[in-house]
């Protein structure tokens, strides 16, 4: 137990909230909303959920992930050059690239919702969700030491 444990804990917890939040919305909230609410109400609720989740992403999730992530990488001795090397560096680089792609998809989802393009919005939401799970997969693939 050192302070680095706390940093890692914050990183993992924040990720769990974000991925778990998306999963909960997609797998629990959405089907229930479709079944229980009429079209107008549903739109209202889902927009509100989306906005809240977006706020959480921008205000908490991203700062925490980026801050702790950079700190952990620095602690680990990761350099720009080492990101290209096979092994830890390259897996981390792939994870970061995928994370960026997920963020782009999430941003597109927000834009498409505002631009009244529900099809694209839904596609991007699912892309972001599946991509996030992929990020978790790559995180677990990072060598432990």
């Amino acid at each position, binding site marked *: 137990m050192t302070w680095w444990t706390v940093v890692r804990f914050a990183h993992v917890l924040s990720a769990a909230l974000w991925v778990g939040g998306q999963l909960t919305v997609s797998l629990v909230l959405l089907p229930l909303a479709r079944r229980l609410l009429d079209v107008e109400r549903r739109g209202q609720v889902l927009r509100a959920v989306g906005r809240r989740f977006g706020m959480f992403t921008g205000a908490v999730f991203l700062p925490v992930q980026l801050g702790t992530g950079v700190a952990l990488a620095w602690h680990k001795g990761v350099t720009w050059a080492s990101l290209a090397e096979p092994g830890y560096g390259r897996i981390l680089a792939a994870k970061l690239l995928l994370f960026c792609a997920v963020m782009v998809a999430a941003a597109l989802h927000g834009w498409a919702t505002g631009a009244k393009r529900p099809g694209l919005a839904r596609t991007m939401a699912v892309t972001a*969700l599946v991509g996030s799970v*992929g990020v978790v997969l790559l995180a677990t693939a990072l060598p432990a030491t």
Partner: protein
Amino acid sequence: MTPVEISIGKRPPSGPSEPVRRRAPWHLRANALVVAWLGLTVATALAGEGLPAPRWLLIHVFLLGAVTTAILIWSEHFTVVLLRAQTPDPRLGLTRLGLLNAATVAVLYGVAAGPATIAVGGAAVVVAVVLWHAVALVRLARRALPGRFSHVVAWYVCAAGALAAGGVLGGLLAAQAGGGVLHERTQAAHAEVNLFGWVGLTVLGTLFTLWPTVLRTRLSERTRRASAMGLRLTVPGLTLLTGGLLVDLRWVAAAGLVTYAAGTAAALVPLVEAVRARRPHTGAAWTLGAGVVWFEIALVVNAVIVVTRPTGEVAGALEPLLPLVLAGFVAQVLLGSLLHLLPAVLGGGPARFKENAATLERGWTVRLAAFNLGAPLLALPVPRPLTLLGWALVLASGAAFVVLAAVTLLRAATPATPGVRRPSPVLAGVTAGCLLTAAAVVVAVSGGSGPATTVVATGAKTVEVTLSGMRVRPSVIEAAPGTVLTLRVTNTDAQRHDLRLATGERTPLLAAGQSATLTLKPLGEAVDGWCTVAGHRAAGMTMRIVPTGTQPEAGTEHKEHGGMMSPLDLAAPMSPGWKPYDATLRPAPGGSEHAVEIRVDDRVVREVAPGVRQRVWTFNGTVPGPVLRGRVGDVFTVTFVNGGSMGHGIDFHAGATAPDGPMRTIQPGERLVYRFRADYAGAWLYHCSTMPMSQHIANGMYGAVIIDPPDLARADREYLLVSGELYLGEPGSDAQVVKLREGRPDGWMFNGTAAGYDHAPLEAKAGERVRIWAVAAGPNSGTALHVVGAPFDTVYEEGAYRLRADDPGGAQVLDLAPAQGGFAELVFPEPGTYPVVDHLMRNAEGGAHGLFRVGVR
């Protein structure tokens, strides 16, 4: 016969009232196969160097996959349409297609990766399927009413016969039946009969009716006669060509090719007439036309090659031409036909027909221009960037067709309902997310796992590697980690080979006698190498570069890769151009002072055993070094020059001198003068005096000094045999030194080549007195020299006669310990072949073996 309007395929249904129908659903599925193979062809070309046998795979994925499947589908379709025959049971056609595709996969897998038997089995099934196909066509024709198009079927049947022959040859190639030049000739015959027979005959037969249809013109009246004439010329021509190539009759092959060309010219007459009547105006017509033009060009170039080259070199000379034939001729004819035929076959009503036709012809001018600009770049000797540009043009054009064709096929698979069906957003999202994740995983795992091992260069080493007789020699190269290895790869075989390393370095395809140099990155992990010519890897053409100290713990694996420990193939033929070391011993020159220059050459590559060439360390470039001969009391002044790459010295046993001066080691570029008086008669050894002497002697630095005894009688012939051990591998390499230290030679040699005089027997005549001088150079074994069938009547060993000709006794062995010398004399009783062996039988069987061919006096 009156001109007739015919229409195959591209007939837009006459009006909107006609019910929408699918013409033949199985055509749809079957053509999806062709399009899939074409897509795979593009993928194979792009994957290129990453595949085990890139060239071969590209050719066969395209020809055996896409083209053969297409021919099977379309030749049956045309037969049915042209003969107005009853549509045969589609299940049989589908069975043939299924079998063909399974067999194709077997051939591709068997040759590229698996055991050759899979490929041979696949080839057998391909041949069987095509013969079955031919039988089916003949039965269709028999059952149909006699029509004006029945001549087309004859072309298809002959084409099938050609593929049967080509497939059998391909199977033989895959099985590696017959090596060397025969392999090359078989390959040439295989390529010619498949391309000009299976593909060429089918195309010509089809064009008689397809070409007027594509041009929307009338069928020429001469078609029938031209067809009969063409077939009568092309088929015998093809038979002569194939047979001539196989049995090495160049002029027969050339005559066959000329006959074939005459046949195609005859067959093309009505086609040219059609062009005169109506200029091509569609993408299909232009593409088909361009294909036919490339066919003619390929035929002419091919004729030049066959006429100017020996049959054994035809396959090699055809190789650069192949991309042009495949892309320019075969691919364009296939694409042109599909452009024309797909919309009609897919059906779906007039609107759909027009839509499909428009989709397929989209941008055809650009595609056609790109393709025909790119195709010649593939074959011409242009700089590499231009070749790559050619590939990019051809592949992009091909890929564009594949995409467009896939679009029309998918369109046909979905019902033609108005309104756009969108894929569900969830499915799209899941797909996109999975693709992103997969891409990230690929990035993550690329380049292996574990921390990067940057290997620092610690030294450099050059290794001679020879490719011959389905072996890479040496099959194991050991070097310290970090060594920058340079491989000088020489193909000493009669057939072509290359060497490709797992780390990506590769030589071009080397013809007999050609060399190439590969420089590797500093050695980190073990690297495998192999020949990429189809089937050669499976036949054992592999090698491994192993960093020393990282030997695999499992002894079994080491043994498996240590193919070099396998016994030498002493019966194998010597490489072309090999000359034996002349064993004839010339009489001592006059005078009592002899001046000799001996120069070290430790970079020379010599054939140490049949088919095995490796670097040796030598005096004057030969093993053994030059022979010095004189009489007792003669003075030898030897100028010893170190022209090698490391320190060397020299030690003459025949002289008496303090070793300190003349026997000292001198460095490259230095020289010394070694003067000695031969006070004693005998057969003396001289050798390199630099430590470790075992290595310097074992690698070839030895020779003989012959000082005649004063009373030496005249002999009819005198020969000298210097025996020595053979250690395969790079001189001084760890692997070689270990064998040397443990006393495990790979073979034994007389005069520097194991079993050399088995391949170049020594001459003598019955009744002649033959004196055989011998020196045992070792370094660790002596020799028990024995001539089978002829006892010795004289033995002189280490300065004294042990037996003289007038003694009542005889001797069976001249027995020499390492560094001893002497001679034995014998008279061959009668003509025959008399082996001369080291009677230590292990050594004899390991190469200390030669022959005397004794003729009539």
